[in-house]
């Protein structure tokens, strides 16, 4: 499955990228699987996406949770808790 990944704010800076296209291994089917797969990259990926770190995930611009399923071509955004207003 191929998805588009977007990163914002503190995560964008810490990970050193604002977007990428990713080909996911067959076993990665939901948000929990995705963050585990990204977290295995080491370095900032591992520290920023570790369990207990505060980040949010949106799929196709809707908030998602750990169990939300991924789909082919999805736009998946990972970002810190929001601080607007």
């Amino acid at each position, binding site marked *: 499955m191929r998805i588009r990944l*977007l990163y*914002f*704010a*503190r995560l964008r*800076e810490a990970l050193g990228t604002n977007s990428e296209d990713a080909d996911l291994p067959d076993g990665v089917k939901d948000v929990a699987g995705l963050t585990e797969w990204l977290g295995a990259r080491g370095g900032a990926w591992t520290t920023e996406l570790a369990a207990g770190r*505060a980040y949010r995930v*949106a799929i196709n*611009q809707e908030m998602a949770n750990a169990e939300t399923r991924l789909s082919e071509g999805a736009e998946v*955004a990972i*970002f*810190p*808790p*929001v*601080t*607007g*207003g």
Partner: protein
Amino acid sequence: MRVQSEDFDLGAEITRLRAGNAKIGAVASFIGLVRDLNDGDAVASMTLEHYPGMTERSIEAIIHSAKARWNIYDVLVIHRVGRLLPCDQIVLVIVTSAHRGDAFAACEFLMDYLKTRAPFWKKEELPGSARWVDARQSDDAAAARWEKPAT
């Protein structure tokens, strides 16, 4: 609803929003501003980032919720992005309704939800350093007040 880098004019926006509608008996508004102090540190400037597309959709959804919940006529939300200085305006919410109770409540609800649900992020530039602003539990608590009790 607008996300823009330009400043806004409260008076002009209210005039436009209520023009010709004699059913409006109340207008409530809120403006958020950049302060020169946060968590005890002097703030030189602030940069607001957003998620184009999702930010607009989430603000539209928040406005939709407010209109479903209170007896109000119109809502305008303007949220600025980009680099702002102390004293600059950040966000504007205007609500028109027949009576003040609905206007006040909807305006406060809109701000509480904007702060906790719309994808915006603030980065503060201090003299000699910069830091991303952390989300506040007090903002989550303010938004949680509006959650309807389970029935």
